[in-house]
């Protein structure tokens, strides 16, 4: 069963049936037995995804290693153009792997398997629901292609739509669905082929802010129920952190950091991640409690480290002064200049240049009292206790 999950028979609860609607929506026990009781041909390490995605296209080179166990939700996070979508297409077989790439899913090599034979479901960024088919027939499309008789495929599709809370919209054409509904139909369509790998490309990008919140919560539930590997691609750190158990940060076609959301939020290793999670990040050489930054002054930290380190602190840890403060307990003091000001709710984010470029958060009242405006000189202090240093 492990080599051709797509060919799952119509009769009997095979291992691929774990997430099939017939086994009852949301019945976790079925899902568990499904993934555990099948004729397991390999060891436990054979389960799940083990891939090295190598794609060379012109001057762009992607080389991303990706492993995940069944039940994992992995987010590929990165700026636009980092190669996330290319990685996703390579997993789906829509973009061929270049020399040196490999792709194993549940122990079976998929490198040369054509897209239509891979047990891989995809939720596309703009969903790509077939506009000429109803929601029901969109979801039934996959099972039909696998040879399930029409009536049975439609019954399965109806169960999926019901599970997504869309039973009332089964007959609707995609153009009559709201963004959130279309997203759920797309998810149901991808899940209806009982994939062993579910791919989601920017699953929430096409939604407006209000729908997004609601759909994100629903998607999280559905992903938690999904017993095989899910990989989602996003440039939104919040989506990634809410939806995924593990983040893989990709920049310029390479993995720059990998870990749990909280780990990455606390220990960013690139400017991009630091910006995403809202931290000031610097790299330097530590000697005891002092870190000499590669570019700029020294920072005093509480950690006692040696060698190359990162130092991070949140913008809220920065205190601004108009005149050089005297008698401050802060160990770190820098002279800066206001580069720009941005309003975030009742907070103001000041972009500071000078000795040490950094971002500082302060209240609007404080900003008014300090008479902050672009070009104004300020002194910035940060207590050592609010910095965080960790080995690079």
């Amino acid at each position: 069963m492990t080599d051709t999950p797509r060919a799952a028979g119509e009769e009997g609860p095979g291992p691929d049936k774990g997430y099939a609607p017939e086994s009852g929506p949301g019945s976790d026990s079925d899902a568990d037995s499904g993934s555990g009781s099948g004729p397991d041909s390999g060891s436990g390490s054979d389960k799940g995804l083990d891939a090295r995605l190598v794609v060379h296209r012109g001057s762009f080179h992607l080389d991303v290693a990706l492993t995940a166990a069944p039940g994992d939700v992995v987010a590929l996070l990165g700026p636009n153009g980092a190669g996330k979508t290319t990685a996703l297409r390579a997993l789906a077989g829509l973009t061929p792997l270049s020399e040196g790439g490999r792709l194993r899913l549940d122990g079976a090599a998929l490198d040369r398997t054509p897209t239509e034979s891979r047990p891989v479901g995809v939720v596309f960024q703009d969903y790509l629901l077939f506009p000429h088919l109803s929601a029901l027939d969109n979801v039934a499309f996959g099972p039909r292609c696998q040879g399930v008789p029409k009536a049975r495929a439609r019954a399965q599709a109806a169960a999926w739509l019901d599970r997504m809370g869309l039973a009332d919209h089964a007959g609707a054409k995609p153009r009559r669905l709201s963004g959130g509904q279309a997203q759920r139909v797309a998810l149901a369509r991808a899940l209806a082929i009982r994939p062993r790998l579910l791919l989601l490309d920017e699953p929430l990008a096409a939604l407006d802010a209000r729908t997004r919140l609601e759909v994100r919560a629903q998607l999280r539930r559905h992903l938690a129920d999904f017993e095989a590997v899910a990989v989602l691609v996003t440039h939104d750190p919040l989506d990634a952190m809410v939806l995924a158990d593990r983040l893989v940060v990709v920049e310029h076609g390479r993995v720059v950091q990998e870990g749990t959301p909280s780990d990455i939020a606390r220990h960013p290793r690139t400017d991009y991640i630091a910006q995403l999670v809202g931290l000031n990040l610097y790299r330097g050489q530590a000697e005891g409690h002092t870190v000499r930054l590669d570019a700029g002054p020294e920072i005093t930290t509480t950690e006692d480290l040696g060698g190359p380190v990162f130092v991070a602190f949140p913008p809220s840890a920065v205190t601004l002064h108009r005149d050089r403060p005297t008698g401050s307990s802060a160990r770190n003091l820098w002279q800066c200049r206001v580069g720009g000001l941005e309003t975030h709710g009742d907070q103001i984010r000041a972009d500071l240049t000078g000795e040490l470029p950094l971002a500082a958060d302060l209240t609007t009242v404080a900003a008014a009292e300090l008479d902050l405006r672009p070009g104004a000189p300020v002194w910035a202090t940060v207590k050592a206790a609010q910095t965080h240093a960790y080995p690079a």
Partner: protein
Amino acid sequence: MTQPGKADAAADVLAGGDTRGDGPRRRAGAGPRRGAPLPLLLPALVGLAFLLLPLVALLVRAPWAGLPEQLTSPEVWQALQLSLITATAATAVSLVLGVPLAWLLARTDFPGRGFVRALVTLPLVLPPVVGGVALLLALGRNGVVGQWLESAFGITLPFTTAGVVVAEAFVAMPFLVISVEGTLRAADPRYEEAAMTLGASRFTAFRRVTLPLIAPGIAAGSVLAWARALGEFGATITFAGNFPGRTQTMPLAVYLALQSDPAAAIALSLVLLAVSIAVLAGLRDRWMTAAS
């Protein structure tokens, strides 16, 4: 409804409006539009008259009183019937061969694709008579392939009804291919990818997803090809001859009747004019608004 607005904007430009791009706002407050400059208006009107006059003459001189009689005469009926059958058959042939050809041109990449595309469109600009001669050399009794067709299968195409279909399809198919290829290029190929991730082979994806999506383009291309086949003259008379009941289609009948029975020729022409107008009306949304 953006099209009326677009048409208005276009009309505005034609009427000498400035091109600052604030047309709608300016128009809302402006009075009657300024007229077109005479050096443009005059030739434009002459051109319009030139295109319309022959059609008006056809209507003016039509033997309206004897029309029912003319149109129900066995000769006319025979030619009309043959025309409808052969044009429809030629369209069917064009569909079966042309849609896959359009797909190949739009969705695959092979060396010399641009050249093949140019070859496909060649019959569009080739004089039909030349097409007929070429068909004779290829499929005639002594033709490159025709020779072999006759000896191996006993099939002769020239001067048969099947030959009419071949000649018409040769001339009409490029219209269909170009129309369908354009629609295919405009259609999002990622729908095919989505279908493939759902387990559809490339052919299934084409059949169940792409084909329904491009159906309007196929319909428009078919109507266009059908109209072209219906009016085919040069290639048909060269390759299939002019035998009443067998290869004499409407255009051939019109040409022949003009020498012996002008009234019948006019009656037949009216029928073809009516068909043309019907085709134009059918393609109205696609072609007439596309130009605005």
